[in-house]
């Protein structure tokens, strides 16, 4: 098993390397430097600025220095749009808010999705099953950039129940977290249902019935435990969707998180910030996939010997 884990950890290194290469070279091959604004800057000043930000050096060297800075000091470099703050300051200010939002959304997705899927599978082909399946399709079909406005309209503008914008009290967090978690909850519900139905047809479940075990024991200990294994595999991709989902949700609800800052920096073409935040998000997503794979090896003995 340790060989599997080691191999999996080593494998994520080239992935991170490729991500950093793509990010760096895409952002640096955009024609026109950050100081080519509409306002003409004197040549000497531009040259000085470029020297200060080391833009006058060859590209491979810039890449080496940049990635070395990240690996060595976790230094993501300066921001071009806001001269007073570095990319590190920006990450430090905005990441905690995004992390809170993501954790809340993940809790909502797992807390509602998995039970919904279990109930649907246990009550297969009843109205409860149909209702939960319908709900799951609904959740999957309304993307956050539609669900967000719907929720704002109903709960903030019509009913005046909840506030929107900013990130202060728990009331502020309800609508964004639901918007971000709804689609994932629907996905989990569908997956749990399908996986549960498949497990319920297995021979060992029939054996358990034949042994005369009580129903709750069969459902919980024999069926659910095995049914959740495939559900765990999607946690990695799910995490990725939640991270990229924060871009939209934070933008819609005017939450001062890193996702919103990322979208703003795309609008400003602030390449160092785009680069730094992309790398950070990419690192989180790759790390989440790694953790899920490793935990999978612990949970499912069959995977260890592959």
């Amino acid at each position, binding site marked *: 098993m340790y060989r599997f884990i080691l191999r999996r950890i080593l494998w994520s290194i080239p992935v991170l390397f490729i991500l950093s290469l793509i990010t760096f070279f*895409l952002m640096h091959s*955009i024609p*026109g430097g950050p100081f080519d604004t509409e306002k003409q800057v004197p040549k000497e000043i531009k040259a000085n600025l470029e020297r200060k930000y080391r833009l006058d050096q060859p590209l491979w060297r810039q890449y080496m220095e940049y990635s070395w800075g990240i690996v060595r000091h976790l230094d993501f470099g300066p921001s071009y749009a806001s001269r007073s703050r570095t990319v590190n300051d920006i990450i430090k200010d905005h990441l905690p808010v995004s992390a809170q939002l993501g954790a809340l959304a993940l809790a909502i997705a797992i807390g509602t999705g998995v039970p919904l899927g279990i109930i649907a599978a246990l009550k297969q082909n009843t109205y409860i099953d149909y209702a939960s399946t319908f709900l799951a399709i609904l959740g999957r079909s309304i993307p956050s*950039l539609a669900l967000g*406005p719907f929720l704002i309209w109903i709960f903030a*503008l019509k009913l005046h129940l909840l506030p929107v914008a900013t990130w202060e009290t728990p009331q502020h967090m309800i609508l964004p977290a639901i918007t971000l978690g709804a689609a994932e909850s629907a996905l989990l519900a569908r997956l749990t249902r399908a996986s549960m139905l498949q497990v319920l047809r297995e021979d060992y479940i029939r054996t358990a019935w034949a042994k005369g075990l009580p129903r709750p024991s069969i459902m919980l200990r024999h069926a659910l435990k095995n049914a959740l294994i495939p559900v765990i595999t999607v946690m990695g991709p799910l995490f990725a969707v939640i991270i990229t989902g924060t*871009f939209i949700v934070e933008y819609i609800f005017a939450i001062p998180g890193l996702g919103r800052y990322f979208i703003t920096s795309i609008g400003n073409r602030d390449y160092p910030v785009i680069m730094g935040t992309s790398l950070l998000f990419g690192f989180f997503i790759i790390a989440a996939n790694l953790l899920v794979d490793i935990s999978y090896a612990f949970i499912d003995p069959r995977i260890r010997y592959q």
Partner: protein
Amino acid sequence: MLPLRRQTAEAPTVPRAGGHRGIWADAALRLAKNKLAVAGGIILLLLVIAAIFAPFIAPKGYAEGSLEQNYATPGKRYLLGADFMGRDLLSRIIYGTRVSLTVGVVGATLATIIGVIYGSISGFYGGRIDNWMMRFVDLMYGLPTLLLIILIMVYFRSSSLVGVESNPVIKALSVIDDAIGGMFFIFIGIATTSWLTMSRLVRGMILSLKEQQFVEAALVAGASDFRIMSRHLLPNFLGPVIVAETLNIPNYIIIEAFLSFIGLGVNPPMPSWGGMISEGFRGMRSYPHLVLFPAMALSITLLAFNFLGDGLRDALDPRMR
């Protein structure tokens, strides 16, 4: 001997039972019984009609507006109101169908084409080629998809800005991109990652198919590799592969809406539902209809695709029902 002969003699008169229709006809029958799937199909048909005949259905052009009429409320003159530039919202939503459906269908087509070619070559030649090609897929799989698409779109959108000197290839591509309202770069962005799952699927199918005797027969008859892949292997897996890919269309529609929402999608004034939500968003407190109607159009379209897609999957794999 005698009973056996009687049985064979009687066989043709036995009425054909349900199992004899073949899997596709069976699936079609099951699909027709699924009310939600049929409803989804009908809505999709209407959307396709709306997209094709948009100039005849829409009351006005998508770019035509008068500033005196901006933020007009829904009423007789503007059925769903007018946006911040006084453009008819209904017309823009109808034209927006074009962008969403085109991106969805082209995205799925590109994923299928690239995935089938890549997966076929990898599975057919096997050995070291297969190993390297699949390691590359694994590598790409590890990358965060949407983030990659965003970076690619930032690159294209920034490089093709007017007045920016970039290499001639990008310039040529951006001419094509402009001609179709900015959708071309979206196609490229989606195509860079969308083919990965398909290539794995196709490779798996090829691996099992190429051991079959008809491939051996074709080899003995002197058929070229290309002929074996295109004439003997492809028809054996293309059907299910296309069905599998249609289930991904909603994803591509969401990606387009997402990109247009953050300003990397289609070029204005080309209407995209994601872009319209973004445009209307600032005035949402006073004019919520400008956001809600495009959001509804997007949701209904995705709902229709998912109803039909789920029905299709259940019809082809009835055990899961």
